[in-house]
């Protein structure tokens, strides 16, 4: 097992910079998820750690050892690919053993490791099949098996669940989490799916355009997103963003379609702010009522109902209501939220934190 240290890591193809001066410490035994929209450089970063891409700038160290010039095979890591990358002409058993044979490992040891992996992943009945005779989920297990037989210091996963259907994805997610609990090895996991990131990670790194937007636990990212991008990226259904004009010297805000309400004391002098509220915190006819809107769409999800509510400005807000709630499209409803549930972002999109004492004095005057 080993931690990982990235210092000013950069990657460029000619003039095109994919990764820009990245610093990151990955702790020993951590399940770190790299998440971001496609093209953000997360896979490239993973491949740089793996040794499949050159590192243009900075250093990558596994444990105490800088590995920039170390070939992939010497980095003592395993990688699981999105495509599984199973050798199609070999049986499952041979797929599992192939990598170990390169290291001139005694046959008995190879067999022991292969058998162990097969038992852990419950693929023992499949050992003599070829990959094409396996389902997607089974292939994925074999791919993971091939990674664990190496008994590496570090596991790398490149979107390993993307090719699976939704149900299997949920199942494999749980299995990966329990595998992690069992092995305790450092894992770096790339995904574009924030749900995967939230459910599995010890910590999440949100990447955009080759830069780190925020690093933190799933709770930190959800409750205290550092900028608008993270606020919008983490959480499903998506957070509501309200553009606000600051008036009265920073004491009140005006949101088109909602009207004026008073602001807590904020450490910013920007005249425009973005106020964000999660759909779960947007309430119908309760809380500090701010205004009203017309229900445009009702999505019944069983345990809850997702409402699309149009403000008079035309902006659509998302709100979740209980599964029992009987709303219908066309209905006009009062909507509200508690000021404590608001996230404030300045004109450059960075989070601004209300002064601690501020909330107590906040009275909200809902005018419409």
């Amino acid at each position: 097992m080993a931690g990982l240290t990235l210092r000013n890591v950069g990657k460029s193809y000619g003039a095109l910079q994919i990764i820009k001066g990245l610093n990151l410490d990955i702790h020993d035994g951590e399940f770190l998820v790299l998440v971001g929209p496609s093209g953000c450089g997360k896979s490239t970063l993973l491949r740089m750690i793996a040794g499949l891409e050159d590192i243009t700038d900075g250093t990558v160290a596994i444990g105490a050892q800088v590995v920039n010039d170390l070939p992939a095979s010497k980095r003592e890591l395993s990688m699981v690919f999105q495509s599984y990358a199973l050798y199609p002409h070999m049986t499952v058993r041979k797929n599992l053993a192939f990598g170990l044979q390169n290291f001139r490992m005694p046959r008995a040891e190879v067999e022991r490791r292969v058998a162990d992996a097969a038992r852990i992943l419950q693929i023992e009945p499949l050992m003599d099949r070829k990959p094409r005779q396996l389902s997607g989920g089974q292939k994925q297990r074999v791919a993971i098996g091939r990674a664990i037989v190496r008994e590496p210091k570090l596991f790398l996963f490149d979107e390993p669940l993307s090719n699976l259907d939704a149900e299997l994805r949920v199942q494999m997610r749980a299995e990966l989490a329990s595998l992690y609990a069992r092995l305790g090895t450092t894992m770096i996991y790339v995904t574009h799916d924030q749900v995967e990131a939230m459910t599995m990670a010890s910590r999440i790194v949100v990447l955009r355009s080759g830069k780190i937007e925020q690093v933190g636990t799933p709770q930190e990212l959800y409750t205290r997103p550092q900028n608008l991008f993270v606020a919008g990226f983490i959480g499903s259904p998506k957070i509501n963003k309200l553009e606000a004009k600051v008036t009265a010297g920073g004491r009140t805000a005006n949101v088109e379609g909602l009207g004026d309400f008073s602001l807590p004391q904020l450490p910013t002098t920007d005249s425009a702010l973005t106020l964000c509220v999660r759909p779960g915190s947007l309430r119908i006819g309760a809380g500090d009522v701010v205004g009203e809107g017309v229900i445009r769409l009702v999505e019944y999800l069983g345990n809850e109902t997702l409402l699309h509510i149009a403000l008079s400005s035309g902006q659509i807000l998302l709100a979740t209501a209980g599964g029992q709630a009987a709303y219908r499209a066309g209905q006009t409803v009062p909507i509200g939220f508690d000021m404590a549930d608001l996230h404030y972002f300045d004109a450059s999109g960075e989070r601004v934190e209300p002064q601690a004492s501020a909330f107590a004095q906040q009275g909200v005057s809902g005018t419409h």
Partner: protein
Amino acid sequence: MKRFIARNAPGYLFLMPWFIGFFLLALGPILASLYLSFTRYDMVNAPRWIGFDNYTYMFTRDRRFWKALEVTFHYVVLAVPARLIMALGVAMLLDKGLRSIGFYRAIFYLPSLLGASIAIAILWRQLFDANGVVNQTLGYLGVSGPNWLTNPDTSLYTLVILAMWQFGSPMLIFLAGLRGIPRDLYEAAEIDGTPPWRQFTRITLPLLAPVIFFNLVLQTIEAFKTFSSAFIISNGSGAPADSLLFYTVYLFNEAFKFFRMGYASALAWVLLIIIAIFTAIAFFTSKYWVHYENERD
């Protein structure tokens, strides 16, 4: 029936040029040659039915037939692997992702386009002439080269080298095959510390097997049919000492020099059967060494 036609009409329409060519131009001569192979026919007098005489003569008394077979087999055994290895080697170099790969592909394919032509065979004759470029080059290195084309021991090798040089079309097919092997497999192998040679033997070759098989069958057929280069280089006679007496050269001489059209037809049918047998052997053994990704079990 109506639905069958409606559904398949476009397919047959596109096949039509081939069908027309086959039925109008090829089928007649094919059937005629089968008939003629049982006759004596000198192109002046009408063919005379002689039963299996041509075939029994060929297998029991015609020493040049056996010589032609020997030369041709010898050539096939050398030229086919040589060309395939050359083609695979160049394809692997090109697959490494050269800049302006299209340019190199065209350049490397050029010999194959020219190779079948008479001009190249004549050029080859000059290259390997007693005072040709090859021997002059060897001379600079202090080696006195043999008289390649007049020496029965070396003449066949000049044609094998020519065959190697014409690696273009199998190379293109190999290149397409190599492109079809997912990069991930090599990356996974890389991470698992697989040395390059083992990647080649354990990943590239097995996954390329269907393409190797295809090229092997095609090139074997091609090699059995080699004619124009052998004809030109041996002055049409199979000389020296019948060392370039390719099967087709012998067949040509029987037909158009000695006007033994019936016998030549019989030779042609025997060649067809030999090629068919080799192709069949390739197909039957393929299930032991060719892995198809999408085959059913």
